[in-house]
């Protein structure tokens, strides 16, 4: 029987990597659920794929105050060892200096030029939040970091027109979130219930906690998609 030490490592690694990724995701989720104040950002992994996260962001300050944005975060399969930060894509075409007007992907390269396992997703999300709420910070970044130059210019030059545009987008963004989508684990709202602001945040938070607590049992993507046993 041929004995090959290298291949043994690979197999053990394969098992380990999946569980380690799972537990890292759990850790990140738990950190996020405690790092953000009630009423700002909420995350829930997609029903079918725990590397794909659904998020919702209630903007509480800055020019887009009162907008509600749904977004998705895609992690790579080798998370947390991926080389670049996770991809954050907004579901609504909001105009922002760091968000591509074509793909609606948020550019975090200023704060996170690279990614490694010591980085936490909560700081990535905090950066996203910071950027969304601090236009002054964004427009003053080096020009090559600004993706949507148009809106940056507008912000700098014509505050009045910018504000009008922002107002329009805020209204649109709020309307957008009532449209239901396919995923079971997504934030969608009933127009009547959204009025009761406090309660809804509480219930989202509860929901997140339950999901996070039960994930080891129902972690669907890794457990279900694997057809082979460990050994």
């Amino acid at each position, binding site marked *: 029987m041929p004995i090959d030490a290298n291949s043994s490592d690979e197999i053990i690694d394969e098992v380990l990597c999946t*569980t380690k990724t799972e537990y890292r995701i759990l850790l990140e989720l738990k*950190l996020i659920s405690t790092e953000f104040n009630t009423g700002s950002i909420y995350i829930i992994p997609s029903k079918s794929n725990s590397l794909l996260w659904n998020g919702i962001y209630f903007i509480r300050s800055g020019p887009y105050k009162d907008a509600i944005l749904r977004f998705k975060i895609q992690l790579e399969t080798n998370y947390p060892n991926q080389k670049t930060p996770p991809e954050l894509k907004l579901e609504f075409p909001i105009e922002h200096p760091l968000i591509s007007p074509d793909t609606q992907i948020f550019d975090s390269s200023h704060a996170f030029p690279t990614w490694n396992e010591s980085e936490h997703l909560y700081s990535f999300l905090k950066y996203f939040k910071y950027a969304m709420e601090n236009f002054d910070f964004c427009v003053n970044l080096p020009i090559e970091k600004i993706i949507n130059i148009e809106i940056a210019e507008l912000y700098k030059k014509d505050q009045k027109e910018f504000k009008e545009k922002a107002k329009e987008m805020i209204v649109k963004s709020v309307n957008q979130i009532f449209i239901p989508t396919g995923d079971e684990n997504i934030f969608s709202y009933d127009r009547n219930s959204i009025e009761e602001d406090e309660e809804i945040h509480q219930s989202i938070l509860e929901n997140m906690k339950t999901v996070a607590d039960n994930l080891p049992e129902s972690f669907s993507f890794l457990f279900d998609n694997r057809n082979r046993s460990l050994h």
Partner: protein
Amino acid sequence: MSWLRSSPLRQSFSRRTQDISNTGTDSKAVSDSFCKHWQQVSDIINRSENRQTQHDDVLAVVNHLDHMTTLLLVELHNCNKIALPNGQHPPAPCLEFMLSENLLDSLYEWSLSTGRYSNAVRLEQLKLYELLVSHSRHQLLVHEPFLRPLLKLLASCQNEIFPHDVGKRLVILLNQLCVVLMQNVHLLDLFFCSTQQHGLQMNGANQTNFIIFSLLIPYVHSDGSIGHQARDALLLCMSLSQKNSNIGTYIANHSSMSPVLVTGLCGLYSSLPNSIEVHSIDWFRITADDVNDMPELTLFMNSLEFCNAVVQVAHLLIRDQLLDFLYQGFLVPVLGPAVLQKLKGSHLQTNVESQIASMAYLDLILRSVTEPGLLKIMIKFLLDNEKFDGERILDVLIERINSPDSRLCMVTLTLFDTILGLHNEQLMTELILKYLIGARHIPIAQKHKINKIQAYAKTVDYLLDLAPEVMKNSNMILAEHKSLDYQQSSSASLPTHTNIVSRTIGANWNHYGLHNTGESLYSNYHAYLYDAHQKIKRTKYSCDQWTDNYFYKSPHKQRQNAKMPNEQLVQIVRNFLSEFNLDTITTTLMSDEPSNINNISNSSKQLDMDSLQSIGESSGYESMKYRPDEDEEHQINSGNDSGNQISTNINSNITIVKNIEPWRISRFKDSQLFDLEITEDIFTQGTVSLGPFLTSIWSKLQTFTSNSLYVNLHLTGLISHIALYPLPLVHSILLRPDIPTTSDIPSFYQVLKILKQQIDAELPMTEDSLELIDIGRTFLIDREFKLINARKIALEALKASNASQLSTSQTNTQTSQLQTYDPFKRQDDKRKSSSNSIMSIFRRTSTTTASSNSNNNNAGVIGANQAQTSGFAQIYGLLAAGIASLRDHQPNSLELQTSSINDSTGLGANSYINERHRDLAIAAIILDEFLKELSSISQEMSIVLLNENFKNI
């Protein structure tokens, strides 16, 4: 009431219910008949005044009474069906006749003259009363003509010894009376001071007496259903004592309840066999089936259960008295010496057999006691260091972990597993925490790591790397041959048995998407994770009720809580620090990549060692903690979303903070504590003890490769059990290879590393070694299925026997006794330890045919219970009892197993398969699985404990 069902009267019952208007005429006929029967009885009674009672007389009276009883029953049945609108009872002529003519009293008076037939007549009377008490809606007890003769009858029963059937009737009647009294507490006084009220001479004294209770006491230790009913009735009295404190005072002060119970318990304990006949090499604890198997043990457990129940329901006065009696009368003089193997202060000749027996009994007692009060005295018993000549039971138990006798060792390890399963703060403190608080076993510079939960995730790589090389390779080969049906290969080696038994355990694990039905849980990492998740959840639930979370706290902080330090001095030190080090900090920070506040403090701490040391010594402060003010912290917490706020809030000595990007600041500062415990003895290196418990376990672990397989299963199970506690201090020695320890014994990882080296050296990576591993693995998996199937067979046998029972006699007292006996039922969810439920699944087959209710329940929940059994130690170890029944049919011992495999695979007795290598192979497999179990625990912990320290912020 089967006689009622078979009665020809049933038809008339149904007719009556259909035609309720006819009751008038019918009840007339009934009452006429009743009176006629009584007339005849009365004649006999009158006749007996002149001559001695004859056999025929008694027979005739009994016969008439039987008829009267039936007629009364018919009447009562009718009455109970009708509800009159004004709330009054419908007329009951028979009953009224009986009361107005004072029949019962006449009957009683006559019975006194029946001489040698008195018991037969008494039996009839008891039946009659029982019927009336249990079936009448009327409040008969308030009627003098009913109550008076009843009390006379009961009084006459005192100090009598009855034949079994009379005793049984008496207990049933008393039981019924208790039920009625439970519903009508106001009637209680009728039975209470009965002596004075009725002027009866009882017991030769005119003292207060609760006659029901005193009549029941002699039956408390009885065997069979009579004992059960008596205990039931006594428990009802006990519950009554909570409603009526007179009863409580009476039982506590005037009855012999507590002494009778405790002396009975002592007697029953003393009659337990001195050594337990052990059926298999892997026996380790007494199961419920063992209890049913051993009549002495059944009796003892019944009594213990009863004490438990009494403590649960009784009046506080009784409860305290009983607990005190139990402690002073049973635990200290009987159980203690039995466990210590002492007689009148001197050690008995060391007898391993009786040591094993006493340990197993102690384990059984600890598992069966559910009542907190009783548990408390059990714990007090374990920790008492006055009553046993300065010896402490717990210490003696710890010593036995390292017994050279592997059976004693196994029983001891199991006992500690039970103790850990209690999740008791006091016991955990005595066993482990006491030695770890203050973290003296960890170098000063490393202490801040203890509460850093995120580091747990990295433990996995380290632990799994400690697996023996041969296992790594064997696992790899197994994975490669995955496509070849795993089951086929293993069943091929054992063609005869595996055909009979179907492998079904995996059925419950389908949600993993990993397992086909019937696959082994061997090496299933996801099952380990799931298991760890469930067990940690349960353990944490219990530990959340503790007085402390036992996270590492610096001595400084603890002192601060007790007494506020001199604020001024702290300020001076702080100013000094800021002046002295500002520049250095700044440069450090600038050169480093921006990081969090913790790093700043960290670097400053290191730089300040010298300066602080001098200050600390001169000021008399043993430790100094350098950190921003509490206020500042709060501001950071509240302003976590804005970087600007932070830079202004933090005062001048760390203005550099503003360089930290706002999005990198966590709400929780993971390591706020930086202790400079200056006067701590740095020479303690290598001399800190982890306490006798951990030391014993470590030393047992060091002999891992020469321990027996079953000892290792329990040993690893126990270590995993310790790791399941959500206590970072405990984890610091079990799940944190990144934290070095300075204990006087090799660290856990050192021990594991040595074991790996030992196995790697003695079992090098060769074909032969791999072959041995294969054989060992097959043996273990086969054992797993045998255990599962043993249980399955037992359940099937149980079903069959239940079915046959239904068709046969229903009044078999033996069966009914067994059916109600279940010493392991626990009402309290929290204490439903997994081992308990596992044990209840895997009771031995041999006796389950006798059946018990609990087994029936288990059949229903077996799926759920199996989900808790995935810990490999449990699959392979705790289930061991189940295998005993198979021992006659299949080779059980390892030797036989291996040789049979050798024969079937054609290997023969090749020289390389010597015992040592075979043991090593098994040890390697167990070590490999143990490491997986530990890593899964560390992974789960990394999530469960995250931010737990900041829960209340």
